[in-house]
């Protein structure tokens, strides 16, 4: 066989892909989504707390937030996941048993929170001081003004950066394979990697890659779409983006804008 077709076979062996496909769809994809979505939710809530702590007037909130962000942004994701996933495993064993997912999600969330916290903080600080003054003049407390007026505007401005972070999270979810996954716990990468390791053919891994692209590429386009919309202002007929934030910080549409 000539080298070129060998190369082709290494990546595009359709039979190998077909063999891996059912597991990718029924096991790998749901598991990747479970990891990424739960880490995104927890990471965003923690990130919002970090952002608010980061702009606090009390240094006992500001400094810990600063140190946290430096540490979790500065460590390699692989190291953080191993440190938490393996280091806390004995503790986890007593609470929820041998399942590595809770600690995997925790580690991913802690990493994401450091980045998301900085994103939210930048957004919140970009809102004009006059908005705070306007809200305070109506009689809102500082906390209410932040929650109802400042944070919703700030978060809106950094939605593109936030979505970028979700993309990073989807990719980083592959790293939980470090923690040891039984067959039903494997996510996209691990399944592709297992097939590749047993057959010596990379096609299944390439298929896993395609699944990642299937998730991340639409999100990158969503980022651009959101960015454009924020730049141009909303079209009159566009769905209402009125957002009020819970104290915890996850944006939730109120859906009851009175007409």
């Amino acid at each position, binding site marked *: 066989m000539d080298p070129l077709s060998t190369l082709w076979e290494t990546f595009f062996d359709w039979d190998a892909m077909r063999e891996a496909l059912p597991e990718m769809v029924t096991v790998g994809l749901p598991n990747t989504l479970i990891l990424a979505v739960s880490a995104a939710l927890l990471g965003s809530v923690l990130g919002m707390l970090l952002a608010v702590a980061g702009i606090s007037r009390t240094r006992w909130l500001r400094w810990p937030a600063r140190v946290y962000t430096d540490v979790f942004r500065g460590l390699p994701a692989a190291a953080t996941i191993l440190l938490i996933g393996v280091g806390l495993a004995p503790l986890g064993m007593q609470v929820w048993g041998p399942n590595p997912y809770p600690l995997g999600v925790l580690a991913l969330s802690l990493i994401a929170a450091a980045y998301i916290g900085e994103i939210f903080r930048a957004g919140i600080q970009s809102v004009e001081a*006059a*908005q705070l003054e306007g809200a305070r*003049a*109506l*009689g*809102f407390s500082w906390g209410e003004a932040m929650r*109802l007026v400042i944070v919703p505007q700030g978060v809106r401005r950094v939605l593109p950066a936030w979505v970028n972070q979700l993309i990073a999270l989807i990719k980083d979810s592959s790293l939980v394979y470090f923690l040891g996954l039984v067959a039903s716990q494997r996510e996209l990468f691990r399944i592709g990697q297992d097939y590749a390791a047993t057959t010596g053919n990379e096609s299944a891994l390439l298929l896993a890659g395609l699944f990642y692209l299937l998730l991340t590429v639409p999100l990158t386009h969503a980022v651009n779409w959101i960015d454009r919309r924020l730049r141009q202002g909303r079209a009159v007929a566009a769905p209402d983006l*009125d957002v009020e934030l819970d104290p915890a910080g996850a944006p939730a549409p109120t859906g*009851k804008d*009175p007409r």
Partner: protein
Amino acid sequence: MSTATATATSVSLAVRDVHLAFGQHQVLRGADLEVARGGTACVIGPSGSGKSTLLRTINRLIEPDRGDVLLDGRSVLGDDPDALRQRIGMVFQQFNLFPHMTVLRNLTLALRKLKKLPEDEAVQVARTQLDLVGLAHKADVRPAQLSGGQQQRVAIARALALRPQVMLFDEATSALDPELVKGVLGVMADLSAAGMTMVVVTHEMGFAREVADTVAFMDAGVVLEAGPPAAVFEAAEHPRLRRFLSQVL
């Protein structure tokens, strides 16, 4: 057109010997101001004289270092500042509407969250108030889609929806195109005529002359001269006031 619906509860306002420094910079050096119940005081004076700062000490957006602010003779400095600000409406030069909410929601937010009105009641109060400033048909658009004059009228309606006992205006027409000034001043004049106690920081000398009961001239952190418009504009005593008037009139 009557802009105010509930001015029967207006109060008198007194500012007594208010001092304030930002670091080394002494902004207010013993400012005094008296506004009778239902009266309108216009505060005039050069830039940097402390007019806007004085206004902010009245609703305690800025806490004075010394001095007192009285509503109906009672000091407000011991009150909860958030509760106090619900009683004192304020309108800003840059409107400070919330751009991510519709006009209606700008009005209902405080009604629902602070006055704890149920949604439908808040909407009703808000629509009534918008109607009074002639903008009921703009309830569902975002502030950015309105002209500056319309935005300022919404801001006035937003403050009035909370039924304040005093209204503060901080150069409410300074950011407006000339042709939009009149509409906003008209709303303010109506409000004054309806008996709202008002403090108006303004460069509109015509408005001060026609609407104010008291005109107060501020310079370098104090009210140098105050009195009825006729006295201040026609018979100014202080040379600095005379110089100021010769420049602006």
